[in-house]
């Protein structure tokens, strides 16, 4: 048991109590049924998606990409870092340790912010494993279209924040 897991189950219990007080057992059954409907669509594709993601961790050359970003500076560095961030495989437990490698190799703060933001919004791995099975490809196309500039904006804004506050690491 970890903190976040406890938190989500507390949320489930609170919501269940609220539903029960408003609609009684019938409401709970209806809520459970709609959860089961989605679960049924995931039965085949989720395990396959997780498997694909695990293979990708082997295939994507993380170390080669570390060299690509390095201490790069300026807008080109920010754009490169955004893309590299999007390709980082795995959840926070694999990607943040990789981010430390970049940080220690002397990358600038704006590039690092772009990298973390790129990982957050593009997340190839998360897209394949969860977003596509649940939301479908059309939603992904829309989200990608809407998110394309975000990491670059974040990098530029970080440059501004650093300039104004003098914060660094």
């Amino acid at each position: 048991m970890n903190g976040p897991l406890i938190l989500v189950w507390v949320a489930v219990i609170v919501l269940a109590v609220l539903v029960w007080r408003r609609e009684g057992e019938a409401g709970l059954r209806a809520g459970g049924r709609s959860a089961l409907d989605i679960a049924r669509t995931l039965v085949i594709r989720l395990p396959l998606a997780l498997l694909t993601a695990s293979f990708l961790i082997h295939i994507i050359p993380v170390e080669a990409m570390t060299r690509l970003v390095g201490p790069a500076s300026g807008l080109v560095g920010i754009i490169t870092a955004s893309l590299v961030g999007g390709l980082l495989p795995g959840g926070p437990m694999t990607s943040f340790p990789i981010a430390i490698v970049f940080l220690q190799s002397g990358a600038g703060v704006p590039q690092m912010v772009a990298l973390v933001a790129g990982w957050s919004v593009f997340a190839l791995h998360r897209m394949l494993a969860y977003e596509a099975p649940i939301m479908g490809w059309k939603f992904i196309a829309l989200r990608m279209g809407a998110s394309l500039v975000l990491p670059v904006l974040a990098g530029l804004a970080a440059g501004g924040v650093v300039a104004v506050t003098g914060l660094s690491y």
Partner: protein
Amino acid sequence: MKIARTDIVFAVLAGVTGAMTYARFGSGAVVDALGRAGALFLQILPQLAAGLLIGGLVTRLVSREKVAKWLGGSSGITGLLLASLAGLLTPGGPFTSFPMVYALWIAGADAGALIAFISAWSLLGFNRLIVWELPLLGVEFTVVRYLACLPLPIIAGLIARWLGRWPVFRLAEPEDRGA
């Protein structure tokens, strides 16, 4: 249980990436990936179940009209702000948040609100911030990163609404059972 086109796409993806892994790294790597995927599956099950239940229960509490009014196409910036705040507060991993996006979609939220929600969850979510980013990357970097990302979910929501004018980006009605 029905096998949908998406399931076939995933079977092909798993086959192709599996073959690439085998060709380049041998059977050890394939076994390793299988074990990793299995462990991950068991690990996310409790969170996935919670996410699906939260989605299902929320649809009982909030009527379609209310969601459409607060987060629908004519909810304006307020709708995007509300969706961003909800995303920021949503705990758990993608196996919790995406079922919630799905539930909001069925309940009548527009594309802009859905994108703002998921962007806020991924960029500003408290959960990951406290568990991973602060301990691993330090307070100062995290503060800079957070400030720089603060307005992004709203921007993404606005872009999503703007993109909606082209059919390629227009979301269909949710396929209720994911046919």
